[in-house]
C-alpha cells in the first residue's frame, strides 16, 4: 500500500518539499514490449533518465517512438498485454517494479497526475466535468460530498475557469476546447501530485488556447511541482523544458539540458527534427533532408496558360449562414473576399470556428454561398448549376487532413488514382496506367505502391497518394484543408517540400488552410487571417506576419510557441 503521507487538504504549498534527495524519478534500462510473453514486440528499448524535483523534462519524438509508453510505465498503465522490465524504476525512492494494480492505484492521482491529450475524448462525454474532478478526490478518500464539490469549484477557479460553478455542471461537449482542457488539468491536479505528466496536452488546441494551457502548466511548475511533458512539437517544448530527451524507435537518442540540446543538437535525428519545423525562417528552404527538387514534369497536359493577369480563383463578399440545432442562425462566413493568383499560394489561417473550412467548401463549390460569388479563371463558378459545373470540376481539387477517411479502404492506390482521370483525355487503358505511374513518380512513390491499399501505407505515403489524387485531373487549383496537421513533423516537412516542388514545376495554385501559423508562413505567398467568419487582415505573408496591423493578428502571433534556439541560424528570408 501507499507509503506516502496523505495530504489532508491539498492547498498548493509554494515551498519545496523538505526532502534531502533531489531526485524524484529514476529510470534505468527500461524495456517495454507488447504481445506474446516469450517474444514481445519491443516498443521501449533500454531507456534511462533521472528527473530532479521541480524540473521539467520534455520527452520528444514522433508517433511510435515510445514516448507515451515510457510515461505510462510510471503509473503502471501500459495495458494488459505489455511486459515491463527495468534495471531501476523509482518514484521518490520507492521501487515501482512489480508493484501491483493496488499499489499503482494509490500512486495515480495522489502522487502522479496524468493529463492526456484532447479533453474531448479524455473526459467521459456523458458526465459533467465536475464529477470527473470530484472522482479524483473521492477515489483517494478526500473529504465529503459537499466539501468535494466546494473543492471542485475552487480547483476550476484555480485553473482559470470563469464561472466555475456553472462549468462544473456542464458536459465536455458543452464547453470550449480551452475550458475542457482546463477541466481535465484540474482533475489531474486535484490532489496536488508531486509529479505531473502531460501527454501532448496542447496538440488539438488553437494557438491562443495552447498558450493559455502552457501558462497553466508553467504555473504548476512554478509552484515547485515536477513536470514531464510529452510532445512531438519542439516549439512547445522549448518554452518550458529544463531537460530534453529525444526518442526515436524506442530509444533515447539524445538527452540533456534543454538549451544545450536545442542549441547544439549532437544527434542527426535531433537536427532533422529541428530543421523540419516550418516557420518564417524556413521560407524558401527545404525542410526535409534528401531528395532534391528534382520533380520532372511529366504529362502535364495543361492547355496554354490562360491570361496570367486574371486570378485563378477570385471570391467576393462570400456569406454563409447556418441554423444550429437550437434554431439560432449563425453567420459562419461573413463578407470574405480573396484573390488567388496563378501559381501562388494563398494561406488561410484562423482558429477553430473561424470559417476556414466553410470558405474552402465554397471555393470547392461543395457549399453554395448565401451571398457573394466565386469566379474561376474569371468565369462564374459558385453561381453555376451543378450540371454546368461538372465539366469544370476537374480544375479544382482537394487534399484533406486525414486521407485515410477520404479513401475507400478497399480500393487499391491504382484504382484511387485511375478514378480521377478524365475518360476523354486518354486513348486507352494502357495510357491511363502510364499516367498512374507518372502521378506516383511525381509524388515520390514507387511503382510497387500502386497495388497497395490505403491501410497498407504509412501516414506520409497516404498523404502522398492524396496529393497524387488531387493532381490526377491536372487541376489549376488545389484546396489544401489542413493537409499536414495530422502528420509528424518530419513527414510534414517532406509533404510541404513536395507541395512546393509541385507548385514550381506544374504551376498549380494552392488555397492552403491551416491553424498552424508556422506552416502558413512557411508556404504562403499571401495570407488571409480569419476570425469569426470575417477577414481580419490580409496581405503578403511577410507583411502580415512581421508587421501585423490588427490586434487580433498580433495576439495570434504572440501566442505561437516559437522554437527557442540560442544561436540558431537566421535564415535569409527568401521571396
Amino acid at each position, binding site marked *: 500500500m501507499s507509503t506516502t503521507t496523505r495530504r489532508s487538504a491539498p492547498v498548493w504549498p509554494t515551498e519545496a518539499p523538505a526532502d534531502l534527495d533531489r531526485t524524484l524519478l529514476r529510470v534505468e534500462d527500461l524495456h517495454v514490449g507488447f504481445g506474446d510473453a516469450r517474444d514481445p514486440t519491443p516498443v521501449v528499448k533500454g531507456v534511462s533518465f533521472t528527473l530532479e524535483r521541480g524540473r521539467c523534462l520534455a520527452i520528444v519524438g514522433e508517433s511510435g517512438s515510445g514516448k507515451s509508453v515510457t510515461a505510462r510505465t510510471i*503509473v503502471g*498503465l501500459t495495458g*494488459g498485454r505489455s511486459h515491463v522490465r527495468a534495471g531501476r524504476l523509482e518514484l521518490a525512492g520507492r521501487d515501482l517494479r512489480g508493484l501491483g*494494480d493496488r499499489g499503482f*492505484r*494509490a*500512486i*495515480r*492521482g*495522489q502522487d*502522479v*497526475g*496524468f493529463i*492526456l*491529450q*484532447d479533453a474531448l*475524448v*479524455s*473526459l*467521459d*462525454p*456523458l458526465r459533467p466535468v465536475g464529477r*470527473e474532478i470530484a*472522482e*479524483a478526490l473521492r*477515489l*483517494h478518500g478526500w473529504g465529503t460530498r459537499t466539501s468535494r464539490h466546494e473543492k471542485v469549484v475552487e480547483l476550476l477557479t484555480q485553473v*482559470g*475557469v*470563469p*464561472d466555475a460553478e*456553472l*462549468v462544473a455542471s*456542464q*458536459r465536455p*461537449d*458543452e*464547453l*470550449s*476546447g*480551452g*475550458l475542457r482542457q482546463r477541466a*481535465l488539468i484540474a*482533475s*489531474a491536479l*486535484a490532489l496536488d501530485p508531486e509529479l505531473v505528466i502531460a501527454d501532448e496536452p496542447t496538440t488539438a488546441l*488553437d494557438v*491562443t*488556447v495552447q*498558450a*493559455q494551457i502552457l*501558462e497553466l502548466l508553467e504555473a504548476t511548475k512554478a509552484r515547485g511541482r515536477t513536470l514531464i511533458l510529452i510532445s512531438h512539437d519542439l516549439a512547445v517544448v522549448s518554452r518550458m523544458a529544463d531537460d530534453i530527451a529525444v526518442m526515436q524507435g524506442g530509444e533515447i537518442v539524445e538527452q540533456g539540458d534543454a538549451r544545450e540540446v536545442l542549441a547544439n543538437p549532437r544527434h542527426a535525428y535531433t537536427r532533422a527534427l529541428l530543421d523540419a519545423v516550418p516557420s518564417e525562417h524556413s521560407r524558401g528552404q527545404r525542410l526535409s533532408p534528401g531528395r532534391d527538387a528534382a520533380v520532372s514534369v511529366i504529362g502535364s497536359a495543361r492547355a496554354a496558360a490562360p491570361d496570367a493577369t486574371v486570378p485563378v480563383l477570385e471570391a467576393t463578399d462570400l456569406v454563409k449562414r447556418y441554423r444550429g*440545432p*437550437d*434554431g439560432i442562425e449563425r453567420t459562419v462566413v461573413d463578407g470574405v473576399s480573396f484573390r488567388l493568383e496563378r501559381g501562388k499560394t494563398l494561406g488561410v489561417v484562423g*482558429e477553430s470556428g473561424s470559417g476556414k473550412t466553410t470558405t474552402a467548401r465554397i471555393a470547392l463549390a461543395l457549399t453554395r454561398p448565401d451571398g457573394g460569388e466565386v469566379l474561376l479563371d474569371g468565369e462564374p463558378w459558385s453561381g453555376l448549376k451543378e450540371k454546368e459545373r461538372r465539366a469544370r470540376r476537374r480544375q479544382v481539387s482537394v487534399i484533406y487532413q486525414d486521407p485515410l477517411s477520404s479513401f475507400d479502404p478497399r480500393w487499391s492506390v491504382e484504382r484511387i488514382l485511375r478514378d480521377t482521370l478524365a475518360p476523354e483525355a486518354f486513348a486507352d487503358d494502357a495510357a491511363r496506367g502510364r499516367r498512374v505511374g507518372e502521378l506516383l513518380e511525381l509524388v515520390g512513390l514507387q511503382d510497387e505502391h500502386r497495388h497497395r491499399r490505403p491501410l497498407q501505407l504509412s501516414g506520409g505515403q497516404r498523404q502522398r497518394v492524396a496529393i497524387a489524387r488531387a493532381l490526377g485531373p491536372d487541376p489549376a487549383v488545389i484546396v489544401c484543408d489542413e493537409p499536414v496537421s495530422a502528420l509528424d513533423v518530419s513527414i510534414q516537412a517532406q509533404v510541404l517540400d513536395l507541395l512546393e516542388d509541385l507548385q514550381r514545376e506544374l504551376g498549380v495554385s494552392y488555397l492552403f488552410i491551416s491553424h498552424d501559423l508556422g506552416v502558413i508562413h512557411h508556404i504562403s505567398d499571401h495570407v488571409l487571417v480569419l476570425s469569426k467568419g470575417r477577414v481580419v487582415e490580409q496581405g503578403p505573408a511577410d507583411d502580415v506576419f512581421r508587421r501585423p496591423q490588427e490586434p*487580433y493578428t498580433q*495576439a*495570434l502571433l*504572440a501566442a505561437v510557441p516559437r522554437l527557442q534556439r540560442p544561436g540558431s541560424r537566421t535564415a535569409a528570408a527568401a521571396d
Partner: protein
Amino acid sequence: MSTAVLDDRPAPPDAQLLRARLRRPARVAVRILSALGVLWAAATFTFFVQSVLPGDRATLIINQDTGQTIERSAAELAPINERFGFDDSLVTQYGHYLTGLVQGDLGTSYRLKQPVTTIISEQIGPTLLLTFSALALAWIISIALTVATARRGRIASSVASGFEVVTAALPHYWLGVILLVVFAIDLQWFPVEGGTGFVGLVLPALTLAIPLAGFLGQVTREQFERTLDEPFVTSARARGMSDLGVRVKHALRHAVLPAITLSGWALGALFSGAVVVELVFARAGLGQVLVDAASARDIPLVSGVVMLVALVYVIANLIVDALYVVVDPRLGKAA
C-alpha cells in the same frame, strides 16, 4: 494573460438555453403524434386484412356456433350481417371500427361473444409479468456477463461470447422444453405447470430471457470493449480508479446505449415469444387466447391482440427514446 480575450466564454448564453427548453415540448408532441400515427396504421392494416380475407364472415360465425361447415341461406345470414354491420359499405365499417377504437372498443369476439377488451384485460396480466420479467432478466444476465468477462483474458471472454452466440440462436420452444425436462421433471426444483406464483414464473421467464440475453450481450460487449479503449477510460484509471470501478462507473453507461435501443424492439419480440412459452408451460396469458382465436378465425380477437402488441411496441419505443436521452444527455440537446 495577454490572449484571454480570444476564447473561453462559458457556453451557451442564457437566451439560447431558454430557447432550447421551449422547443422541448414541441419535440415531445411530435414524438407522440408519430406514435399515434403508427397505431392508426396498424389499425387500418388489420381492418383491411380482415375484410379482404376469403370467406363470408357471417357464414363463419354461424358455422362456428353450430360446429358445421356448410353454406348458409340468406335468411340465416341476415340477422348476423345486421348485428355486426357486415352489410354496410367498407368505409362505414372502417369508420365504426375507428370510432370504437378511440372509445376503447375492439369489437366482440365471434366465438366467445364477449367484448374483445374484456377477454384481453383478463389475460394480459400474466403475459405482461412474463415479458417484463424476461426483459429484466435478460438485461441482468447480459450486463453481468459483459462486466465480468469483457477484456478479462482470452479464455473468459471467448467462453462468454461463445455463450452469447449459442444462446442468441436458441428457439424458445426447444429451450422451454429442455428447461422443463431438466429443472421441473428431473430435478423437480420448479413446478411442471407454471402456476401464477413467483416459482412458476422462473422457468418461463428464463426461457424468454436467455436467447435475448445472448443477443443483448453481443451488442453490449462490443460497445463495452470499444469504450474501454477510449482515452477517458485511461484518464479515469490515471486518477486511481480500479478496473471494476471504470467498468461500472464509466464503460457500462456507454455500453448500454445500443441495448436500450434494441429493448424497444425486444419487447415486441418477447410478446410473440410469450405465446409459445405460455403453451409449453401451460401458463395463463394471451398466448392461449391468441392461438385459440387464430385457429378459430376469430378475427376481432386476433386483431385486438395485434393492436395491443402494436400499442406495447409504440409505448416501449417512446420509453426507449426518453431513456436514451437520460443515459446520453448529449442527444437531448441536439435532437
